[in-house]
């Protein structure tokens, strides 16, 4: 096991810069996720670590050892592929033993370690089966066992769950995380599913167009997105438009529609600047009649446009006084009957607002 250090990694395909000068450090034993929309370069970055794509610039080390100069078969990685890549001409046991044989592990040890690996992924007794006799979830486990049995320094997974159905995906991600914690193996996990990333990762790197937009804990990237892109990518968010009316020291007055609120000012904001204010639907609440705002809360007047009941949640589409839309989500509570056309006050804490300079429309 070891940490992974990536310094200034760059890779392009023809005219596309798939990975642009990425620098990051993944700690020993960490569960690290690369997250981003399709085509942002996640797979390419993972393949740079594995050695299936070559660096144009930069370097990659495991611990203190530089590995980007090694061919992939000498890097001692365990890799799990999106479509499993189970060898169809070998049995389950044969697949798992494949890497051990390449390392000239003695025969007796091979069968023992294969058994252990099968037990690890809860497939004991299926060693003699052929791949076509297994279900998707079982194949996924074989792929994981095959990658882990060689005791790799790092484990690389490229969208390992995307071929499974939604239920199984949730189960398997928990299993992978538990296994990883038990073994303490440094893991790089690629996904485009933000919920999956939030659920399993210790840290997440959100990528966009070959760059890392934000690197942080799941809470960080969800609650304190570093850019409008991250805010939008990590889940539904309201993007309000505001104008800085005045700035006094660390505070500023921001006009949103017809309301003016006082907010903490990022240091580069000046009077007249236009802002985007992001606030998640679940950070909003509807004020009861006569109920005032709490300390550090802002209230806006809105009209309910429509109301959607989806079981655990109620989702409301609201319209602010200037006509801009606002989404609100709350846990299903029978006491809050809301109907289209109602005029309500909506409150949210200033600490739940992320402020960015207005993006080009």
């Amino acid at each position: 096991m070891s940490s992974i250090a990536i310094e200034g990694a760059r890779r392009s395909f023809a005219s596309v810069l798939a990975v642009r000068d990425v620098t990051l450090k993944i700690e020993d034993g960490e569960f690290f996720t690369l997250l981003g929309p399709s085509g942002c370069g996640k797979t390419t970055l993972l393949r740079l670590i594995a050695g299936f794509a070559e660096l144009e610039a930069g370097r990659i080390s495991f611990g203190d050892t530089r590995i980007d100069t090694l061919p992939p078969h000498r890097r001692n990685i365990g890799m799990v592929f999106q479509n499993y890549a189970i060898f169809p001409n070998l049995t389950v046991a044969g697949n798992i033993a494949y890497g051990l044989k390449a390392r000239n592990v003695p025969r007796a040890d091979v069968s023992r370690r294969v058994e252990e690996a099968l037990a690890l992924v809860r497939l004991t007794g299926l060693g003699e089966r052929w791949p076509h006799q297994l279900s998707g979830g079982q194949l996924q486990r074989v792929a994981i066992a095959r990658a882990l049995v060689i005791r790799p320094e790092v484990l690389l997974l490229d969208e390992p769950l995307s071929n499974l159905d939604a239920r199984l995906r949730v189960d398997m991600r928990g299993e992978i995380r538990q296994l990883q914690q038990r073994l303490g193996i440094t893991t790089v996990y690629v996904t485009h599913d933000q919920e999956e990333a939030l659920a399993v990762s210790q840290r997440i790197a959100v990528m966009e167009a070959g760059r890392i937009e934000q690197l942080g804990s799941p809470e960080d990237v969800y609650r304190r997105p570093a850019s409008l892109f991250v805010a939008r990518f990590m889940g539904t968010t309201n993007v309000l438009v505001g104008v800085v009316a005045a700035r006094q020291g660390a505070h500023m007055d921001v006009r949103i529609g017809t309301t003016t609120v006082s907010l903490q000012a990022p240091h580069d904001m000046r009077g007249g600047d236009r802002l985007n204010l992001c606030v998640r639907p679940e950070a909003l609440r509807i004020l009861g009649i006569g109920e005032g705002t709490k300390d550090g809360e802002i209230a806006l007047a809105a009209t309910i446009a429509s109301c959607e009941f989806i079981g655990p949640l109620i989702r409301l589409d609201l319209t602010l006084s200037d006509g801009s839309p606002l989404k609100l989500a709350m846990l299903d509570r029978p006491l809050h009957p809301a109907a289209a056309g109602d005029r309500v006050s909506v409150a949210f804490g200033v600490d739940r607002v992320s402020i960015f300079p207005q993006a080009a429309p």
Partner: protein
Amino acid sequence: MRPLPGLNLQVAPLARLPVAIGAIAFLFLGVFLVYPLWCVLSASVLTADGSALTLQNYAKVLSRTYYRASILNSLTIGALASLSTTLIALPLAIGIARLEIRGKLVLIGLAALPLILPSFVGAYALLLLFGRSGVITQALNAWGIPFGSIYGTPGIVFVYTMTLYPYVLLPTVAALKAVDRSVEEAAESLGSTPARTFRTVTLPLVAPSVLSGTLLVLIETLENFGVPAVLAEDKTILAVEAYKLFIGETATNPAAAAVLGSLLIALTALILLIQRRYIAGRRFATGARRVPPPIKLTAPWHILATLYCWGVVLLALVPFFAILTLSFLEFRGPVLHRAFSLGNYAELFSTARGPLANTLILASLAAGLAGLIGIPVGWVLARTRSSLTSVLDVVSTLPFAIAGTVLAIGLVIAFNSGGLVLTGGWLIIVIAYTVRKLPFTVRASSAIVHQLDPALEEASVSLGVPPLVTFLRLTVPLMLGGIVSGLVLTWVTLASELSSTVVLYSGPWRTLTVVMFQALEGTGAGVAVAAASLLIGIALIPVLIAYRLLRANELSML
């Protein structure tokens, strides 16, 4: 990955194996294909002593009506044969793809057979049946029915049509089956009648496949040596004239042979270029999600269609059955007697045991070598994309457009003297065979590799197995079924190779096809018929054994 000493160049870790394979392939094809062709070209533009560039040779050859006629004849016959092949094969393809013809599976298996049966033998059978002293001609004459000549254009075009129609048939059937039914339904929902839909929607969709098959037929006819050698009589044909000028019973004239050879290369290469650049790439991959249902015809039409399909397919096989039958009859000199006899075979085995062994040995060695080079090259072409691999792609397809006689002439010019002398031995024949079949093994291999998920190889490498070992231990076993059938087909077609053998063979290295070729001029018709039957057997038996491994679309790549 250390920088190479003295070079500030880093070889990619993954790319090393493809680079090594590519280097070996370039070396082989460079020495045994490009260099010999270069020799042919330069022989055609150099003065006799090789000291100066000249167009004299071209002027001389082209000033003779005899040789101008050979170009014209080759092109006329090629055009007629491509046209008739397409006209025969298109309805057949529609029948096989869209009608409920009885015994369709057997039909398509039989329809692919002409690809492995030697066209040279087909021509020979025609000669034995309809030639001046042919069995049927004589029977007809005896009844007082006059029979025209099958020599020259009609016979050659007929044989080409009957042996080459699968080149158009198989891709057309595949294309017809790939047409998405909903496209046709869309046309019909817009008020088009089924017949009009077929004409305005379906046919245009399959046209590129048909046309690309037609052009392949044209190339084959231009470079074929065996069929005109048997049937042309006094009609001059480019590939045959080049051979005569080079081997010549009277005075040989290598420069003039090189001129005809170069012209032939230019023609076939141009057609191949058109086929690859403008047509093959234009196939509409509609990828049928729903295969069109069979077309329903009224009973009389259906019977007619069935008769047509079976008729064409069986007619194409008749010459081969005829040869098999004739081989058990008694020949006295060139004259046939209606009596059962194993004499032909007895004579063949007593006089031609050597050639039989040669055929088997040379074909086996060459098939092995073509596999050894072609399979890794096919893997490289399927797995790596770079400007170098596109060059490799072109160079390894090139032999397809090079007439066997011309390649052989080039090999003789190139390796007759100097550092590497190969003429007169077996190796030069094996090399010629290997070069000629390389396009097939390469394409067969890359087609198989395309169906293998590249992640499998990456998974193996990520588990610590080096790329070369991965290729040998994982990729090759996964390709095995396809490799075996590809090699069987290569072997089978090599056993009946004539056009380069006839230039390259020397005393002890005669093959069965050479025996047949020589028998044409002499008296040994009985031996020739037995040899032809043996060739048919050699072609059919492994194919029948490996039938389950073979797919008709592999045959179409031959």
